[in-house]
């Protein structure tokens, strides 16, 4: 199996789906880039200036042309709104929000429109729409370019929320998301784009709502998403050498949530750490903790430990930001403490 980066896996999923289905279109700011630039017209006619702000979609314009790879103004409401309208009327758009933080300027189109069409219209609408965007801190992108608001999306009925952690997952989940008949918010973590892993060449899907156990273990369950999965894995690997067996559950999708996958692991270990980059309050961790407390309380051997950032915006300066992000050390300490309890 070929080794590819997370970035390449995203692009491969897009390319394969666009190849397969001409209704799949990419919409977003600078998905190609360079329109009306001041370079020579001949040059502008052939280049892809950006190919997505982090180069994820580079090459797709060359392959599919302007009618499929649609550069837009910086206009998130119109991007998402247009994509939603197009989805409802027969296309399968993939809208790119660049940074998920920008959902703040187009949330109406997600929250009041795309998410609700099907319900408001009595099941008669389908909105096969994917909204891609980057989440995650760690790059000194500061408070408006570093958030992971999947918890907010997850609380919205009508959208599905996907938060993949590996190259393999990101391809399979993105293809599934594109083929899905519902609006999907697809959260790609900045820190993962360079992550390498095995990714099959062919187009494959991973069903939404199925957790992945990235480590199997018997003593403690760590539930983590996206970049946090790798921190949890690191802790699991370290502690295994000391005889502490950690199970790492990556739900992969926040909505739908694999409740069984989580609860079964909790039932088998009785000790839970939830690592969540979203929010110190009303976050993914809190939702899962509530799920566990209400469904599996009798399996718990110790209180659930939540590891989240503090209740602050994401800071800019690297030491501040590092202090903000849930760390391997905090996870390890939490597991050790649970094992002592």
């Amino acid at each position: 199996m070929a080794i590819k980066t997370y970035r390449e896996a995203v692009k491969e999923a897009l390319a394969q789906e666009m190849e397969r289905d001409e209704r799949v279109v990419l919409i977003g700011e600078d998905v190609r880039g360079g329109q009306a630039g001041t370079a020579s017209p001949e040059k502008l006619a052939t280049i892809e200036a950006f190919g997505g702000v982090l180069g994820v979609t580079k090459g797709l314009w060359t392959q599919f042309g302007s009618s499929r790879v649609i550069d837009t103004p910086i206009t998130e409401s119109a991007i998402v709104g247009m994509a939603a309208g197009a989805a409802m009327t027969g296309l399968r758009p993939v809208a790119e929000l660049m940074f998920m933080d920008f959902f703040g300027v187009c949330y109406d189109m997600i929250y009041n429109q795309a998410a609700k069409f099907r319900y408001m219209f009595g099941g008669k609408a389908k909105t096969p729409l994917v909204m891609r965007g980057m989440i995650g801190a760690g790059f000194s992108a500061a408070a408006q370019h570093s958030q992971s608001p999947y918890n907010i999306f997850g609380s919205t009925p009508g959208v599905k929320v996907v938060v993949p952690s590996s190259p393999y997952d990101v391809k399979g989940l993105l293809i599934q998301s594109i083929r899905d008949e519902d609006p999907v918010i697809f959260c790609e973590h900045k820190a993962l784009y360079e992550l390498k892993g095995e990714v099959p060449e062919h187009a494959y899907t991973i069903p939404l709502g199925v957790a992945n156990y990235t480590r199997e273990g018997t003593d403690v369950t760590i539930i983590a998403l996206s970049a946090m999965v790798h921190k949890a894995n690191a802790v699991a690997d370290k502690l295994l050498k000391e005889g502490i067996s950690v199970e790492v559950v990556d739900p992969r999708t926040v909505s739908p949530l694999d409740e069984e996958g989580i609860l079964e692991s909790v039932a088998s270990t009785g000790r839970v750490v939830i690592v969540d980059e979203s929010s110190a309050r009303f976050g993914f961790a809190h939702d899962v903790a509530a799920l566990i407390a209400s469904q599996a309380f009798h399996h718990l051997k110790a209180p659930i430990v939540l590891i989240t950032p503090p209740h602050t915006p994401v800071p800019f300066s690297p030491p501040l930001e590092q202090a903000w992000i849930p760390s391997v050390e905090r996870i390890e300490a939490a597991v050790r403490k649970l094992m002592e309890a």
Partner: protein
Amino acid sequence: MSSLFAIEVPKWGLSMEEGTLSRWLIQEGDSFKAHQELCEIETSKIANALEAPSDGVLCRIIAQPGVTLPVGGLLGVGAQGEVSAADIEAFIASRGGAPSAAATPAPSTAAAPVKASAPEPQAKASQAVAAPVATPAPQSTATQIPATLQGQTDETQVQATPHALRMARELGIDLAKVTGQGRNGRISQKDVEQAIVAQGGRLAAPQLATPNRQPLRSTEDDSRLEATPLARRLAKQWGINLHDCRATGARGRICQADVEAAQRTYQPATSTVAAATAQPTAIPQADFEVQPLSGMRRAIAQRLQESKRNAPHYRLSLDLDLENLMALRQEINASIPQVKVSINDLLIKACAQALIRVPEVNVQYDEASQSIRRYSDADISVAVALPGGLITPIVRAANQKSIAQISTEMHHLATKAKAGTLKPEEFQGGTFSISNLGMLGIRQFDAIINPPQAAILAIGSSEQRVVALDGQMVIRQQVTVSLSCDHRVIDGALGATFLRELKRLVQTPVLMLV
């Protein structure tokens, strides 16, 4: 002509031992026809109606709904013709039962009523019930997988949760035969459990995770809670977690009274003191001293006698050349201050690796269920001699541990063994044993298997021996080991394969690192 007859808990299927009365379908005093349904009874597997054995009148209800009775337990009394109350009471008394009023509903957690001196219950299988597959019926606690589910899962073909897959692997279930009720038909652990029960199998108790109806007991660390020293001590004595105490002392401290209150909650008046009436021991003879067996002595006596009697032992001996192992040991010890590896430590590692390579030896024999438990990790029990006996602390998963880890762990285990501070989990279990009498100058010996393990390695003293090598007489450091195997589960060739593998590892120790 009038007669009384018993209405009793039937035996539906071989494994049924008790049943719980759900409800009566007729009232006391009602008459019934043969085969009419009288009441509903639930077992751990099924709920079913009890049919009347003949025509009659339900003249007395003995058991109330909710009561669990053993098979043959008296539910009520039926009558044909005229009977007097005295006749009924006499009949009940003849069954050894208490007067009818005594059988009152008991909470489901209470133990089943004692089966008294009831006559042998007759199997009155009034309705065909799917009999469990496994025969003869083993203890009621073991998990039984119905034949309809047995098999191996093609994991590429089913959608199941990781725990369901794990369960299927462990229990030998083909998940293709289980219907998934999760998202998109995914099979969950619960689906598997339900399938087992629905198809007549049985689940060992812990897998049916039933909520605990006892007051919940805390398990978290209470060492930082504010409590008076006396309170802390009482709590420790009584096994009470301080989190379960209401703190009424000054400044929110838990005091003596709080712990006593918690104790009353958890240990209601019923005393746990067993009224054992011990027989006075025989008068000792004058000319010898009677030394009662210590707990340890008794355990050794019992277990090894059982092993020697039940397990057909055979032994295989082999000389191992230790030159390379000694060199490795010297190299490790010379270069790392934190480690002092002994030959025994290296042999533990070698055995662990050999067990992983020959997993058929890394087993326990479960006599009760007539099965072999094959383990994925080698938990090596190492015999440590003590003044009053011996104990076998375990190096868990020695195959996964480095030589340094094994050495350090063994060092501490041995000290703890001597100080008597080993915890049960540190010496109970294990998949293989090593007994080393080399330091006492023993050249070769045979050991008795440590049940339920199936093999033990006896290690003699490491010594210089003159051996022939390539036609030359040379002096080599050698040791003789002897493997005792339980022939019920390990055949001769298998034992020999293990020893051959062990020898390869010992003589080419670099193999242990790969």
